[in-house]
């Protein structure tokens, strides 16, 4: 009883910290995204508000907080307000099993990755509800795209992660981290380069980021599933998008890049550096590539990533069986 109470308190504290992390991450990412975009597009990016525009993101979030929540006519009231909340809350649970350091895990469980993948699937439900409840054809099309895309890209993502799980013999994120060494040549990325590549592509698809941002393709669907949301409704979608990005980057760091392990001293700083490097990559390709078409997106998934993932898994299994 004492033990479960301790775990309960621990989880509550962790959730509070995770909310702080999510909001902090959104602020950092908005700034990073806009500055990197500015750098790529040969313009300064935000520079008016605060030194080098650093408090631009905070001002933006203040604006979103203060904005009127405009509700268009004939929306499905319950679902319309439920959808952004539903987008936000599963993300809180997703960070629980992430090992931030040797002693820094909110909830140490054996099947951490199962928890993450199970709740990550909930995110698309909120997109679907938002699209359906908005009573807008653009939103509906965006929602339909979101479902097809996210469901499709989850499969190669799982296959890529499964290859690493085979290698480590565990679904425990901490054990997977512990089995990798401090130095880059001891990380799983060298053992599973194909899996890392598949994961990297499907992570962009999974988080609906450009060039795979079909659900919110603005030149076709204005803003896709969140067309009709303003103020905090939009902000919650925005927040959960960045939180999802952070999560998949954390998973990439844990599974392929050695997690919190790194040269000189292990610790959460290494995990953050690696995760933000992955996020930088996502920002970079967003501002570089045009958007793919929807059928091409699904073709890439079903015809290339899925067979490659299966092949990789199969090869991993055979090699494991023979040599280890």
């Amino acid at each position, binding site marked *: 009883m004492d033990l479960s109470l301790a775990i309960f308190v621990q989880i509550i504290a962790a959730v509070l910290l995770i909310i702080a992390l999510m909001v902090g991450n959104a602020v950092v990412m908005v700034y990073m995204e806009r500055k990197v975009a500015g750098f790529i597009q040969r313009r300064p990016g935000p520079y008016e508000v605060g030194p080098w525009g650093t408090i631009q993101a905070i001002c933006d979030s203040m604006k979103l907080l203060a904005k009127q929540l405009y509700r268009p006519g004939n929306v499905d009231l319950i679902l319309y307000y439920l959808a952004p909340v539903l987008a936000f809350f599963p993300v809180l649970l997703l960070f629980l099993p992430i090992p931030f350091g040797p002693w820094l895990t909110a909830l140490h469980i054996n099947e951490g990755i199962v928890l993450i993948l199970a709740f990550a699937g909930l995110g698309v439900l909120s997109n679907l509800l938002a699209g359906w409840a908005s009573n807008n054809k653009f939103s509906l099309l965006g929602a339909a795209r979101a479902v097809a895309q996210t469901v499709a890209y989850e499969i190669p993502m799982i296959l890529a992660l499964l290859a690493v799980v085979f290698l480590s013999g565990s679904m425990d994120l901490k054990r997977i981290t512990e089995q990798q060494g401090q130095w880059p040549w001891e990380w799983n990325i060298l053992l599973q380069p194909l899996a890392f590549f598949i994961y990297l592509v499907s992570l962009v698809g999974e988080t609906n980021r450009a060039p795979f941002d079909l659900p919110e393709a603005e030149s076709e669907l204005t803003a896709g599933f969140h067309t009709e949301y303003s103020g905090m409704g939009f902000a919650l979608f925005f927040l959960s998008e960045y939180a999802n990005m952070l999560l998949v980057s954390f998973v990439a760091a844990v599974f392929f890049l050695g997690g919190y392990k790194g040269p000189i001293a292990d610790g959460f700083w290494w995990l953050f550096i690696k995760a933000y490097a992955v996020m930088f990559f996502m920002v970079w390709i967003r501002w570089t590539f*045009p958007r793919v078409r929807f059928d091409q997106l699904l073709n890439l998934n079903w015809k290339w990533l899925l067979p490659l993932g299966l092949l990789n898994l199969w090869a991993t299994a055979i090699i494991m069986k023979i040599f280890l």
Partner: protein
Amino acid sequence: MTGCSLGFINPLSVLENPGTTAGDFYARNFEKKAQPGRVILNLGPQHPSTHGVLRVLCELDGEYVARCEPILGYLHRMHEKMGEVKTPWQFLPNLGRVDYLHPLAWNWAFVGAAEKLAGLTVPPRAEWLRIISCELNRISSHLLWWGAFVMDLGGFTPILYAFEEREKINDILQIITGSRLTMANFRFGGVCADGDARFFKLIQEFIPYLRERLKMYQGLVTDNVILRRRLEGVGPIDVDLCQRYGATGPILRAAGLPRDLRVDYPYGYYDQVELTIPTGPVNDSFGRYLVRLAEIETSLSIVERALKVIPDGPIIMEKAPKVSWKLPAGESYMAVEGARGQINVHLVSDGGKTPYRVKLRAPGFSNLSLFAEAAKGTLLADAIAILGSLDLVIPEIDR
């Protein structure tokens, strides 16, 4: 609405009413012909990829466009009527506002028509200045199209690169036109300002610079695999379709017909420059993309040639028409190759203060008419790509 069945009418229900009674005349009319189970989607007039205020009604079967219909008139400014109530001098600045991306071609069409009617002769230096400024303007128009087109496809960055070049062209043209967007420096019988040494120096620097940048675009955007997959084979438009709808310009040339007024019916001193008309290797969206990029190169070589041969001399004829000038009675017609196709001005005058009739033929109007046929049966994303590849400037279409 349920409100009606309960015995009272909610006044708000008129505003919020969904379903069949919603929408305006066009939407209701369009909806009548729709097949059951299909979605009517209204793109525009405020939509990110309709470049201003074009409105397209689409009937969607899943994500496929079963039928679509462009609706015009949201930016109608009565330019033709203004031509009838203003003297030619007063009407001149209007031309730059018809198509703000290639204003000098419109200037030329109107001024040329008036010069034909009155039998004015333009001094050689003015003719060459017209060619230089018009071609630079064409380059800037194509550059903006290029950036906006890639933005339609979801690539945000190229438009800012294109604007960098466009800024340089604007800086150059500002010297002789005095403005950066709606230029109006053509006068009846010449141009209004001569290029100084800085003007020619900037152009000399700009030509090799842009050639270098075009190579970069080739690697950065044209050879991008995603872009190619998005454009190749999308929206083929053949010569027959073009001719049925009267489409001209890069669309017709991409379809394979080397029709260019600068060569076929040369005006100004275009008969003194050798021109290679780029025609498309393929007639799809990618072909139109390639033709426009090739036309930038063609325009650069025209400017290069013009810089070599431009003579000294006056920039406007002696006894050029003054503000109170009256057009002689009669009618005249001038056709000019604009960035988007054939620009025609048909001028009828009865000898009064103002012209009797000014007919402006906008190439975009005919080019847009193709869209309904070209987009039929394509995916929504492809329809947007086709719309972008037609290079539409809505103010020009609505006039």
